[in-house]
C-alpha cells in the first residue's frame, strides 16, 4: 500500500468514526433543500428554476462544514509533525487530504443530489446534469477549501473565517455548475458550462496542494 493511500484511507476512516462527517454534511444538505421551498413557497415551476442554484449552494455549504478540521486535527495533536517528516511531501499530503475530504463529503453529497432534485421538481435531464456538475465541481470545493483550511489552521474559531475566505474564490464553480443545470432546463446544451467547470476543477485540484502545503509549512514553523 502506498504512503499516499495510507494517509487517504486513514483520513477517511477518521472522518467515518468521528460522528460521521458524511452524515452531518448530508443532513445539512437535505435541510437546506427543505428550508428553501419553505421560504419561497411550493410553486413547482419556480422551484425547478432555482433548483440548480439552491442545490449547488447547499452542497458547497455542506462541504464546508468539515473543512476547518482538515489539517487542524493533525496539527493540534502532533500528528502533522510526524506526517511532515514522512516520505510523503507536504504537497502530496495535502492532495491526499483533499481526496479524502471529497470521498467522504463531496461524493456523498453528489449521490444524494438526485433525491433532493426530486423535491424541486427538476426534470430528468436537468437532474442528470446537476449530478454530473456536482461530481465534477465538488472536488474544486474540497481543493480550494483545503487552502482555506491550511490558512486558518492555527485559529481556534477558524471555522467562522474559512467560509468568508473561500466562498468568493469558489464562486466560479457555483456559477458554472448551476449554469449547466439552467442550460439543461432551457433545453440548451450544458456542454460549455460543464467544460468550464471541469477546467476550473482540474486547475483547482492541481494547484491547491501547492498553496495548502505552503501554508502548512508556514504553520509548522511556529
Amino acid at each position, binding site marked *: 500500500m502506498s504512503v499516499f493511500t495510507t494517509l487517504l484511507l486513514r483520513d477517511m476512516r477518521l472522518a467515518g468514526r468521528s460522528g460521521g462527517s458524511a452524515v452531518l454534511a448530508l443532513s445539512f444538505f437535505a435541510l437546506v433543500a427543505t428550508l428553501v421551498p419553505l421560504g419561497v413557497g411550493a410553486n413547482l415551476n419556480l422551484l425547478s428554476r432555482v433548483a440548480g442554484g439552491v442545490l449547488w449552494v447547499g452542497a458547497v455549504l455542506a462541504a464546508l462544514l468539515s473543512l476547518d478540521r482538515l489539517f487542524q486535527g493533525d496539527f493540534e495533536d502532533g500528528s502533522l509533525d510526524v506526517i511532515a517528516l514522512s516520505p510523503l511531501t507536504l504537497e502530496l499530503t495535502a492532495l491526499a487530504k483533499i481526496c479524502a475530504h471529497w470521498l467522504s463529503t463531496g461524493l456523498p453529497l453528489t449521490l444524494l443530489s438526485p433525491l433532493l432534485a426530486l423535491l424541486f421538481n427538476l426534470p430528468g435531464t436537468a437532474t442528470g446534469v446537476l449530478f454530473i456538475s456536482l461530481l465534477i465541481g465538488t472536488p474544486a470545493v474540497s481543493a480550494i477549501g483545503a487552502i482555506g483550511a491550511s490558512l486558518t489552521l492555527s485559529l481556534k474559531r477558524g471555522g467562522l473565517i474559512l467560509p468568508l*475566505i473561500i466562498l468568493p474564490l469558489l464562486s466560479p464553480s457555483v456559477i*458554472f455548475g448551476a449554469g449547466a443545470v*439552467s442550460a439543461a432546463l432551457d433545453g440548451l446544451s450544458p456542454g460549455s458550462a460543464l467544460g468550464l467547470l471541469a477546467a476550473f476543477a482540474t486547475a483547482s485540484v492541481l494547484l491547491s496542494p501547492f498553496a495548502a502545503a505552503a501554508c502548512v509549512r508556514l504553520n509548522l514553523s511556529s
Partner: protein
Amino acid sequence: MNFLFRYANPHEFMRLSGIILPFIAIATALCFAIGLYLGFSVPPDYQQGTTVTLMFIHVPADVVAEFAYGAIAVCSLLSLVWRHPLADTAARAAAPFGALFTALAIITGALWGKPMWGTYWVWDARLTSFLLLLFLYLGYMALWNAIEDETRAARACAILALIGLADIPIIKFSVDWWNTLHQGESIMSGKIAPVYLVPLLIMMLGYVLLFATLWMVRIRTAILERRARNLMREAV
C-alpha cells in the same frame, strides 16, 4: 539582542514619505477640485442626462478598487519572496482602503444605474464582480485580524492575496459568462465622448493620488504604532 536592521528600512520610508506626503496631498486636492468642476460643467449626455456626472465618481472608484488589490498582491509577492519587512505593513494598510473604494464603486454604480434600469441593483456583471471583490477584501482583513502571530499572519495573508489575484480573472470571466446567460445590461457602453475624457482622467488621477495619500499615512501610522509598542516592551 536588538535587530536594528528592522528599523532601518522603515526609517528611510518615514523620512521619504514625510517629504513626499504634503505634495501628494496637495496634488490630490487639486485634481479633485479641477476634476469635479469640469465634471459638473460638462454638457449632459443625450442618453443619461445629468446623472452622467456620477460616472466621474464611479469609474475612478472602480479603477482604484482594482488597483488597490494589485498593490496588495505586489506587496505580498515582495513579502514572500524577498522578505521585505515593510511589504507586510504596506499590504495590510492598503486593504481597508481597497474595501472602501470597492464599496464606493458598488454604491455609486447602483446610483448611476437606477435612472437607466429603474432599480438600484440588476446584477450587472461589473457590479457583481465588484461585490465579490469586496468579499475578497473582507476575507483578507479578517485573516489578518484573526491570526495572532504577526509574522505568520503576514505570510498567510500574502498567500491568500496571491491566490485571490490568480482567481480574480476567473471570477470576472465566470460572472461575465453568467451575465450573458441572463442578458443583463451594463452601465458602461463602449466609447466615451472626448469632452468627458479629460475630467474623467483628472478624476482618476485624483482618486489614485487620494489612495496613495491615505495609504502612505496609514503605513506611517503603523510604523509609529510598532515603534511605540517596542518602546513600551523595552521599558518594562
